[in-house]
């Protein structure tokens, strides 16, 4: 399944017209201990670049932006009890929400894994 990345350090994995979104391992390492994740409601429609979720650490609250436009189908309920999953497995069990895509053409603007690795290496 193809995985794409944004310059704001979100990842999105696409399967047909649905996708899973999270923050990258690099992002969680910069944020430090995650204490709380504010998840989007199922059914919420988000535009590309909209703030859809907020990830709190002790000293900061960071917006997570929707990489593409669409409709949220579910938030990762496991994070309510265990926000630390975002630290331990940001690109797996620490996913934030699932959504349907309204325009898969928007994926073309995102980076693939190699491009993202190169992007992070420059930071």
């Amino acid at each position: 399944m193809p995985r794409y990345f944004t310059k704001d350090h979100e990842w999105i994995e696409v399967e047909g017209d649905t996708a899973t979104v999270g923050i990258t391992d690099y992002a969680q390492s910069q944020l430090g201990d995650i204490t709380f994740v504010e998840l989007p409601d199922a059914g919420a429609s988000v535009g590309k670049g909209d703030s859809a979720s907020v990830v709190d650490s002790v000293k900061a609250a960071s917006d997570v932006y929707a990489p593409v436009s669409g409709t949220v189908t579910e938030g990762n309920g496991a994070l309510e009890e265990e926000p630390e999953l975002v630290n331990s497995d940001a690109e797996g069990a620490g996913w934030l929400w699932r959504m349907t895509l309204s325009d898969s053409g928007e994926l073309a603007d995102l980076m693939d894994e190699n491009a993202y690795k190169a992007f992070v290496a420059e930071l």
Partner: protein
Amino acid sequence: MNEINRSGWRPAMGEAGAAADGIVTTTGNRGLQLEEGLIFEIGNLDHCGVDFDDDDGGESLEGLPFRRSAPVDLPGLSEPEAVRHYTRLSRQNYAIDLGLFPLGSCTMKHNPRLDEKVARMPGFADVHPLQPQQTVQGALKVMEELAQWLITLTGMAGVAMTPKAGAHGELCGLLCIRAALEARGDAREVILVPESAHGTNPATAAFAGYRVENIPATADGRVDVAALTARLGPDVAGVMITNPNTCGLFERDLKTIADAVHAAGGFVYCDGANFNAIVGRVRPGDLGVDAMHINLHKTFSTPHGGGGPGSGPVVLSEALAPFAPLPFTTRLADGSVRLIEEENAGEDHPQAFGRMCAFHGQMGMYSRALAYILSHGADGLRQVSGDAVLNANYVLRSLEDVLDAPFGAAGPCMHEALFSDDGFADGFSTLDLAKGLIDEGYHPMTVYFPLVVHGAMLVEPTETESKGGLDQFIGAMRSLAERAKAGDPMLKSAPHLAPRRRLDETLAARKPKLVWPKQA
């Protein structure tokens, strides 16, 4: 760790706790450093530290609906137990009364005890806010005298006294701006805020319904005037500028900025948090400011009280003064003072925008601040800002060879000296130096603020420190700077000598425990 230890007042110190000197005590106390349990552990429902007159309660309670079936589950303590509980707790706090408290932008200066005595005078403390005005002239005259001092010291036209803290004052000022714009039928949507601003500025502007746009800073730590003036236009309601700014520098171009903002139809809000640096020497009204809050708990030394109460009166220009919220005072021809509120605002004050809070604001802070101001007088206040700026520059120049001072070369600072963690050993940061200060017997400076400087350390000594006291502090700072640069591991785990070592803030935020659980 077992339950008894967890209760805090009889903890075995544990291996790590004993490591500093190897001494373990059975009580957990260490000489004068005393542990203290929670009232929920040491008190109980049958204890009471208050006696009531015996003839109470003769009347029937039958007429009272919604009666509770049992007393509120609150433990009580006898008076000796209560006095000891709070006295022991107090000794776990650092305070200005104990030593230098160099918290930048917070102005932790000595709190004169005369002010406490004055605030407790019955004519100010034992009067009800809704007594007939003829019976509260003493209190009203304090409000009015203080109001006139604030107006004159700032060179402004009016003052809104009721805001209860700095952020509340910011909101009041923005609401005055909005009311003035609406009165001329001019709906503007944007407030410009420099990126170095205190976080309350954008929070307040957003709360008042404005869209916030950030203005960048220049390399020398000041507002980028060109960027700011370029952004002005018919949609900009105003700017919020802190002066002296959060880098401890005076915004030289404030007058130029104010003229440009006014020409574009907007207003200038000045965050007066740092007024202590210029009080008695510079009147913000002369710089074109339209509104500025004054933290009475900073510049005029009402005590911080562990986080409040504060007081944030807002001085206003001619253009904004008519919009000041109710209530306010005015002196009548016969010398008496009248409180203008809903009942009597009437035709004289049609534009007052309403109320910021119940009653008349922070009387207990007004009386303290007035006593402070009268003690200093116009000459003493000028000396206050002079000594505050002198002390800060002394610290700046005594440390800049061992600590990076990002704007040190740009000239004198105002009342606070800004340093960064540039040059520290890998893995060492501002936080480590700050925690090291605790072991040296000081409260840390403001850290990681302003955000525009990496690893910022903002040191505000204030004018109430002696040269000898500053020299000792400078010595401690020099030694800590060397240790941070050398990567001393003991610094990384500091503090070692305080009532507690570093606390687990992640745990507190992940599993919030905000109240003591009820016993089953």
